[in-house]
Each structure stands twice: as C-alpha cells, then as structure tokens.
C-alpha cells in the first residue's frame, strides 16, 4: 500500500473543498472496504479525507421520508426502531450484510460505494476493465459464479455487492450529493450505471462529490417488505442471489409491489416490467412465475452462474409467497 496523506474534515463543505484541491484524493468513513482495496492494490489514493465528523450521521423519520445520514453506521440503521417498523427490508438487508464487527464500522455512504467482489478486479496482477480500462475481462471465460446474468456485456459482468443498495432500489430511494458544483439529488435508479464499455464508471457521481444522505420515501408498501438473501454459507458472505420485495395487496389482488435483485445484475437490479406484470392481478403462483420469466427473459448466463437463472425465479416465488401469505 502506497503512503497516503490524511485530513479530518469538519463539515461537508470543507470535505468537498479539500477534495477539490487535493489530487488523487478520496473520502473515507469506516474504511472497511477502501483500506482493503488499497492494500490489495485494487485502488490507490494519495490522500484520504476523513468524513466521520461532518455531522451527517443522523437517522431521522419525518412525515414524508426516512433520512439516513451518509456516515450513519450500518448497525445503527439496522437496529433503529423506525427502520425496523416501517422499512423492514432495509433492516433485514443490513443485518444480512458482513459481520457485526464490520457493521459497527461501515457507513451507509460507503456501503453504497463498495466495490465488486470479483476476484479479477481485486487482484492487481489480473486484467480487469473496471480497474484498468481496456485490459480485458477474464471473468467472462474464467470463474464467474459470483457474476451477473443481467446487465453485463463484453467488458464487464461484475455484480454490485451491496445488499442495502438492493433494498434501497426497491424502495425508490434518493441519494443526496454535495460537490464542487453544489448539492443535488439523484434517484437511486439513476445512481448506478450499467457497465457498457466503461465499467470503471460505476455511479452517476461526479469527481469530488460526496454522498451526504440517502432518503427513503414513506409509502404504503414499505412497511410490508422483506429481504431474502441466498449465499454459500450461513453468514458473513455476499449474495449468490438476493431479493428485496415490498408488497401491498387488497383481497388477493396486488395493489403495489416493489422488487429489486442482488447477485444477478451488474447493478442492483430492478425491472419495472416485472412489477407491472404483477400489479392489479391476484397474487398466484402462476402470476409470480410469469413475472419471474419476464425478469430473466434477457438473461445472459455463463458457465459458472447458469443456475442463477432458475434460482432467482425461485427466490422471487419464495419471497412473494411469504409476503403474500400464499403458504
């Protein structure tokens, strides 16, 4: 790991100012992913700006929305009574992430910006279009069990590893950013980018921008939500397939449904056609199966992840059956 400078910023504006005048700098909160990436040589920065003392760690609920400050710790959000009561999918997604030790340290903003677990990305001696644009993607012909069946291409098939991001995607969250050009808010649907031919560009963030908050709207559906995570060991492991779901029914008819998927897409995956196929219809095994088929209609599986095409459909059946009381 290269030696780096370190500054503790006192306010969001100051953090952004320091970033603007410091080349090759980045922000650090819990450091649970960034420092490993730097040790492994997958990222290199000359300067880290500590954002832990900016006063942006609040968790607050008002009439319209839940606000998660960017430096709120995963654990605090997961255990917050309002989050558990009104947004159970967020709490479940967070508690299914990492380990208690990591959750004590890791921040909400950092969670959204964690990098893919692709082994080729994390090994600085391997080619990787995300790490070194144009160097190639060995995952396509190599080991790709953890990789995407949706949203990939010839340049990159890496998945985004965040469980929280999947849950936030289902709930139409908005990401608040502060940068040299001022404040702006980006809907989470526009926040993560498809890799296309520029997989190094993962988000809509502009250079020098800092996540300051994440807002989750209060809706009639969020309170009846769940997160289902399937992985290769009981805990402390990333998703092979995950589903965040929120459902509101009247009688058996679906009034509203929100679905997002992890482990299968190059970004937290939401497909409005899948929700539309369910909305206004009675929630039946057949309806869910049809929605699932829509979800994977454009899937492009590889040797190591072919099973995800089937597994993600079954996961959808499982979570909606539970939420809808089908069994």
């Amino acid at each position, binding site marked *: *790991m*290269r*030696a780096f400078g370190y500054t503790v910023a006192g306010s969001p504006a100051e953090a952004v100012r320091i970033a603007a005048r410091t080349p090759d700098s980045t922000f650090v909160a819990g450091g649970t992913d960034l420092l490993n990436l730097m040790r*492994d*040589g997958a990222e290199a920065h000359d300067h880290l700006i500590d954002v832990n003392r900016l006063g942006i760690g609040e968790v607050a609920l008002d009439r319209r929305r839940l606000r998660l400050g960017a430096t709120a710790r995963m654990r605090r959000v997961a255990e917050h009574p309002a989050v558990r009561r009104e947004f159970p999918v967020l709490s479940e997604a967070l508690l299914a992430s990492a380990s208690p030790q990591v959750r004590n340290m890791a921040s909400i903003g950092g969670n959204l910006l964690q990098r893919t*677990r692709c*082994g*080729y990305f*994390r*090994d*600085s*001696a*391997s080619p990787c279009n995300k790490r070194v644009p144009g160097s190639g993607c*060995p995952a396509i*012909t*190599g*080991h790709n069990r953890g990789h995407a069946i949706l949203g990939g291409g010839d340049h990159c098939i890496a998945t985004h590893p965040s469980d929280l991001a999947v849950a936030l995607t289902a709930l139409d969250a908005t990401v608040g950013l502060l940068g040299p050009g001022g404040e702006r808010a980006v809907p989470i649907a526009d926040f993560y980018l498809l890799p296309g031919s520029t997989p190094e560009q993962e988000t809509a963030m502009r250079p020098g921008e800092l996540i300051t908050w994440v807002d989750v709207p209060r809706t009639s559906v969020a309170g009846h939500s769940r997160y289902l995570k*399937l992985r*290769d*060991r*009981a*805990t*402390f*492991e990333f998703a*092979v397939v995950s589903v965040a779901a929120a459902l509101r029914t009247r009688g058996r008819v679906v009034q509203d449904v929100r679905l997002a998927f992890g482990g299968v897409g190059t970004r937290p995956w939401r497909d409005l056609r899948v929700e539309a196929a369910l909305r206004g219809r009675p929630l039946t095994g057949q309806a869910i199966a049809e929605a699932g088929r829509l979800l994977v209609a454009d899937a492009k599986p590889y040797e190591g992840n072919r*099973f995800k095409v*089937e*597994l993600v459909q*079954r*996961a959808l*059946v*499982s979570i909606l059956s539970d939420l809808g009381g089908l069994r």
Partner: protein
Amino acid sequence: MSGLVGQGVARVDGRAKVTGAARYAADSEVPGVLHGFLVMSTIARGEVVEIDTSQALAHPGVVAVYTHRDMPRLVLPDFPYNRRFIPMQDARVHHNGQPVAYVVAQTLEQAQEAANLVKVRYRAEAPVARMEDVLDEAFLPDMFRNRPNEIARGDAAAALERAEVRIDRTYSSPMQHHNPIEPHTSTAVWDGDTLTLYESTQGVVFTRNVVAHAFGMGRDKVRVISPYLGGGFGAKGPTYPHTLLTAAAARLAGRPVKLVLSRAQMYTSNGHRAEYRRRLQLGATRQGVLTAIVDTSTAQLTRIDEGIYNGSDSTLHLYACPNVHVRQMGVRLDLPTSSYMRSPETTAHFGLETAMDELSYELGIDPVELRILNHNTVNPRTGAAYAGKHLLECYRAAAEAFGWARRHPRPGTMRDGDEYVGWGMATETHTYGWIESEVGLTIGLDGRATLRAATQEIGTGTYTVLSQVVADELGMPLDQVTTLLGDTTYPSASLSAGSSTMPSVVGPVAQAARSAREAVIALAVADPRSPLHGVPAEQVVAEGGRLFARGDLGRREGYRDVMARHGRAVEVLGRGPNTPGHSFGAVFVEVRIQPRLGRLRVSRVVTAHDPGRVLNRRTARGQVIGGVTWGIGFALMEHTLVDPDTARVVNPNLSGYLVPVCADAPPVEALFVDRPDPESEIALGARGFGETPGTGVPAAIGNAIYHAIGRRLRDVPFTRDKLL
C-alpha cells in the same frame, strides 16, 4: 498418581493465549530487525527476463531488493522440503505466485509498497491449469517417500468381474487451502556463522534440518524457535521457500529480517490439497460382503513434483476385503506443489465412504450394518489381530445416541415443515505416525519440574497434555510443572503433523518423569537428613508434590525439601519407541434441506471415536469439533479457484475462499470409547487421534443429502446450485 491424565484439564496456556501474553513467532522483538516482502511472479510458466529494481530501491526506507542474481547458491534439500526447486536460484518460473524478488526495508509498509514498484519482465509460456484438459496424460508416479503408488492384494479385477453386486462411480474434490489464521512468518537472525529463526512451524527440528542442509551448515549452527502456532493444518509441516529466502536475505543484508506472508501469498507458498478425481469400483455378495475394491485416483501434480499427499489408506485397511487394487495416478500442471492438508486421507475416504453408502442402497442393507459386516480385525502393519480396535463399539454408541434406529431408509421420507431431513453416516479413520523423540526433564532446587521437548503446540493442547503426564508420573500438582516446547535447543522430538505428537512424545515424557521420580526418591532414601531415610525406594510413593513411605504416611517430605538439601538439579532424558497405526470412529449427520432454494444446513452431528486412551477429554473433544467443522467446509464450501488461462488463484483470501463460520457449525455430541490400546502401551495406551475426526464428515453429509432428497452428489463442494 493424582489421576490428571484422562480428565478434561483446562489448557495450561489458555490464559496466555487469550490475554495476548503468548508470544507467537511474528511477535518476536529482535533489535535492528528489517522487514521483508516478497515479489511474486504474475506468470505461471516461463522465465524472468529482466527485473528493474530502480524504482523500488528509490522508495523511502528500502535497504535492498534481491533477485536471483544476488541470492547465495543454496543446496536443494530433500523432503520435508517438497518444492523440488528453490525460488530465486535461477530465472525459471514454475508457477504463478512464485517469489522472484525479495525486498528489505525499514518498515513492513515500505517493503510492501516497494515490492509493488519492482518491475519484472517475463518470457511466458502457456500454462496448463486444468486437470480436465490433461486427464488423458495421467500416469502412475514412482514411489513417494518409499511408498508405491500401486498396491494390489488378491485379484481385484477377477473378483469384480464375478461379483454379484457392483458399484462403479466417480468422485471428485477440488483444490483446497489450509488457511491457518496465523500467516507463515520467519525472522532470521545471524550471529557470525550461527542462525536463529523465529518461525511458525509444525516442526522446529524439520525446519532446522532443512535450513542447515540448504546453507551447508552444521545442524548445531541453526536454532529454530516456535513456541506457539496459530494453526498449521499441514501448511507448516514441510519447510517452505520463504524461510530459506529470509535466512538468505538476512545474511546478505547483514541485519535480522522478518517476513510475514500476506494472506494472498499463502495461496501459492505453502502447499495445498491437490484436486482429485477418483473412480471406485466395489464388488460384493448379495449378503453384503465386499469381494473387491478397485480405487483409481488421479491427483493434480506439477511438472517437477510427483508427490501423492492424499493416500488411499482407508481403501487398503478399513474393510476386510480380500481383493483390493489401489492405483494413485497423477497429471502434471503448472501449479505450486501440493502437500499434506488437514487429515489428508479424507480426500480418498470421501470416495470410499460415499461408495459404501451407494452399495448399501444397491443391496438394501443398512449402511451401518454393511460396515459391520465388513469390519476388519487384522492390523495391516502386523498381520495379526488388532489388540485394541473398538470401531464396532463406535458404530453402536453413535447410532444409539443419534437415534439411527428411527431412520426410514427410503430417501425423501423424512420431512419437517418445508425441509427435507436426511440422516447419513460414515466411518472415520486416519493413519497416525511415530517419529523418534527425546525429551528432557529437570527437577529444580525449588522442587518444580520443567519438561523440555522440541515438539510443538500446534493448537491441539500439547503443553497441557504433556504437563498432565508429567504431573501424574511425578505425583506433583499441575501448577508445579512447566512444559517448554518449540525450540531446537531442547531434545529433538516429533513433528506436529500426521497425528504423531502424542504417540511419539507421551512415552518419552512418561519415561522421563518416572526416571526423575526414581532419582529423587533415591536421593531421599539415601539421605540421613530425610524422614524417608532407609525406606526401600520401591516403598516410596509420590503424591501432591510429596514423597511418602507406603504404610507409614507420617514419613514424608516434599520434592522441594529433597532437592534443596541435595543442592543440584536432577536432569533426566526420556525416550522410547512406538509404532504408527490408525484411529477409528463413526460420524452420524443430520442435514436439513429446502431444495426449492437449494438451502442446506447441517443441523446435528454425533460422533463416537476410538483413539485408544483419551488423555484429555476437553482437548480431544476440541479436536472433534474442529474436525467436524472443517469437514463441513470440505463438503459444502471450500474450493480454490484457479484461472484456466493464467493458472493464477482467483480467490486468494478469506472473503473469496469460504470456510465455515460459527453459524455453519452444528451442535456436536462427541463420544469416546476411551480404552487404552495395548499396542501403544508406551504412550499410556493413547494413539494418535488429531486427524481422525472429520475424515468421514464429507461422505456422511453427502450420504445424508441423498437420504434427504434422493440426489447423489459425488463432487464436492456440495453448493446450492447442485441441490436445486
């Protein structure tokens, strides 16, 4: 005798370990030490053409960057150095992740970053990375460590042909890595022509011998110190290049050098369990009597090493079958040399015990019954009946505790809510070794005992168990016994591998303690100032740190009284031979599966083992829990991924290489037969045991999966996609 042996005595080093007082190898504080870091090859096959060290040398704090051009010429040691080459002796690259340069700097961080700045240019050749690409080139290697790779008994082919019932199946297991939590580390300190190494090694004596050989030094000029290990699992059994390179770098630098391998470097530096394919053919009568076993395996070898580290031992000795044919083949790949890894025989045993389950279904005979029918009573080493083999009792005890009698044999018949419940079992067995050992015991002027032995505390409880033996034989409280291990200045004792520490060392320790007791008693009865003066020595007993006259307990005094008067410490040596052998057991496993999502958990495990005499119930149970947990890892998740094009490990870290976590570990009920084995009398009836638990777990889990959902899995790891 105070009767400590056999009890669940708490670890004597437990407090030191949990408080951080125990000093592990990398904790050694050596004045003036420099920090080393290795530069690893990024190709798997070819040659180093050019190494540009200028940027690295310019980095702050860097003292030197050594390459193959600088390194002293070393002599290639034989086993237990098993690499067949020493890196940085020439430009050749044999595998990805091979050391090609060695950076020495003032701090670890400086060395690490400078290593990133070393620019290496290669002439690369295309590597062969995958077994399946070269299976048609499989060959039968020559003998390995005096063991042939083809062993035949009777006429297996003919017997198989004639068999009334036949099973013919193929099994596979992937490349796996040991992953001890403590990384490999070496600190080399030269003082003139003598070398001291602070190592994390399973064998200080082995390491000393290898290093002395490589450097052309007398063994008395090398001292290796390794008081504690943070796990080894075989990865620290053989001696590896990083140790030789660190000693060489320290000599070149003229300063002590400390090296700690990174986790990623541990995936190419210290061996691994080879990937295996195995075809098993079983022949049996309709009544279930085995008539033939043909076990043909293919292991991942390298272009320069033909070592078969995972022997098909249980095929040869576990069941009474007159016709057996074992062939241990291999294919050559451009990967690092494999090695022994935690219970190496598990690899073959997984196939055998799965095939036995398949045979039981073919025959309609209960799997426990089938094993009892084929129980072997003949010790293959002696050709005579085992003097103390209680495997049948293990089957009975574990089956009863598990509730096996309530099992409906038909797959898919046991349900609990949306879960399918499966019950499976397997026999457990592993070979243990005997390595000639000597120990020294001193009774000091304070009457306390100090044991010295150049064996190791690998985490299994060596300090504790040896202290128990000393205390019992001396009739002394445990807190008056100090055990010192892991230093080649002590008498040369067993490697802590191959389950050989206890069978090799307990005998010499007991003998030394008996000699010391007799010596102190002799001093007492000969001393007119002693209350015991004139008592016949054989009439003196020792207990609680005191010596008593039998029948006249008023005549007594403490060890300390005798020693203080005597004024000179009593020093004795202990030694004595034992023989290698096998330990046995049975493991019963319950799995719960929700096939819709491929969800599986191991919900309950019951074991019963026959390790001869149990020396410490608590540490023995610890071995069982650890073995079962690693067995779950083998069965369900462990898998080293190698890129097919570059032959480079893709998941060289504990995030990508999954091992079980607490939430994967079920409750384990560990039963012991606990009867001394007359064939290991010198070791108080205890046999080697450490590697036995876990050997049957992968097969037992696979067998339970079959019982739960009727799907026979033959390729580990049994991941979720295989259960859908």
